[in-house]
């Protein structure tokens, strides 16, 4: 692996990684020759064109850029794109059913009036989705805790909590009759 030689820094285009970055996003493969310091949020928005990923602060404070990486909610502004290689990335676009139907959480956010300007919504839904994948039936405290890294400037948190709760309690019904 000749990237070990520092000399290469001088003779190759320094801003480019020699190998393309290959990411699995919503089950689709994207590849790009890109800078080493490109963040996952930049890759998602600019390279993959997935503009459902919002960025607010770019420093982990607002949660607007939340996506799932291997089912766990993370701030995509605080992961370098190359760190996400080989992982399953899910953005808000990836929650839609094959026929374009909204996911239960997406629908619940609409039904419960949990969307106002909508800027925080994709991140909020993915943080909640991550919670439900880990704890299918969370209590209020767990929901608040899971969403504590997501800021909503428009609404009180109440409708958001209600929306998440409504989906959580659906999973309460026994799967096997």
């Amino acid at each position, binding site marked *: 692996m000749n990237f070990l030689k520092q000399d290469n820094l001088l003779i190759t285009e320094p801003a480019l990684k020699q190998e393309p970055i290959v990411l699995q996003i919503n089950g689709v493969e994207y590849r790009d020759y890109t800078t080493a310091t490109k963040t996952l949020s930049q890759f998602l928005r600019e390279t993959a064109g997935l503009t459902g990923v919002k960025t607010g602060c770019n*420093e982990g404070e607002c949660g607007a850029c939340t996506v799932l990486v291997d089912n766990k909610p993370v701030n995509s502004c605080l992961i370098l794109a190359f760190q996400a290689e080989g992982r399953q990335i899910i953005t808000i676009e990836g929650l839609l059913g094959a026929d374009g139907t909204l996911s239960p959480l997406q629908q619940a956010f609409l039904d419960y009036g949990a969307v106002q300007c909508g800027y925080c919504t994709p991140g909020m839904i993915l943080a909640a989705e991550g919670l439900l994948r880990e704890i299918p039936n969370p209590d209020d405290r767990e929901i608040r805790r899971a969403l504590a890294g997501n800021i909503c400037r428009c609404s009180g948190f109440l409708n958001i909590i209600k929306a998440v709760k409504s989906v959580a309690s659906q999973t309460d019904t026994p799967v096997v009759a």
Partner: protein
Amino acid sequence: MTGIARTASPETIGETSAIVAGFTGSIAYIAGGTDLIIALEQGFRPDMIVDISRMEALNFVEINFKHVRIGAATPVSALTKLNELHKGIAALSQAAEQFGSAQIRNRATLGGNIASAKPAGDLLPVLMCLDCHIEVLCRDGSTKKLALDEVVTDSGTTSLDNGDLITAINLPLQLGDNPISAFGKIGRRRELTIARLNLTVLADYQTETSLARDIRIVAGAIGPVPLRLKCVEQELRGRKVDQTFADDFLGALTGAVDAAIPGRYSQTYKRQAVMGLGLDVLQSLFGREFSLPACLRGMT
């Protein structure tokens, strides 16, 4: 963001060693990236960025009756249940519980907290109180084991050389027969100028006699590095845990905090915040209620 760095994603410690040993430029490891990416945004440019976040050999928790050993790239979210393994390290799981947000906990690591060496690093006072040993793999392939205060030497400064990799953190479970610990914090991360403080207490507690046979207390975020409060420890060591113990603990704690940062906690409401924190940590540690010292009750 424009970049000049190369990247590497080694899967094993052996591969990492080979990569860093054969490279002459500057190296930055990236684990959770929750500090490093902010530094990159601010213009920091290492020659190579080495991702250690996917290395299995750095992501584990091992426990036996003598010690707990935690991989340096273990995410904070994996530490929140450690108290179920051993009461002696409850402080670490409590610090992990209160750390950042769910998204941050899923990425941030112990090794990154140490290497960043920030005064606000919540895990540092806990690791100091629990008397940790930090295992380091040097760039030349040699290894060393260091105490926390040997690694974190000043605000944002460590004794590590460029390319040194923290591989694991060892926590001995050795304070007497029944070590128990607790952690608490006040103040928000971004509020650099006003009251911020965290507190870790480790005690060897004899339940039948209510004796705190031994005690270690470390405060964080009040100076460049965590501060062991030896004078508070001295006052309490070997004593029976009752309301007088709590009164003296809170008195000595406010005295020590005042001495460490003269003036900052002199206002009554801040002093009360320190007392409130002390009280919370004591209650969590001993699993029972205490009240504020009589002289302060009802003060606002």
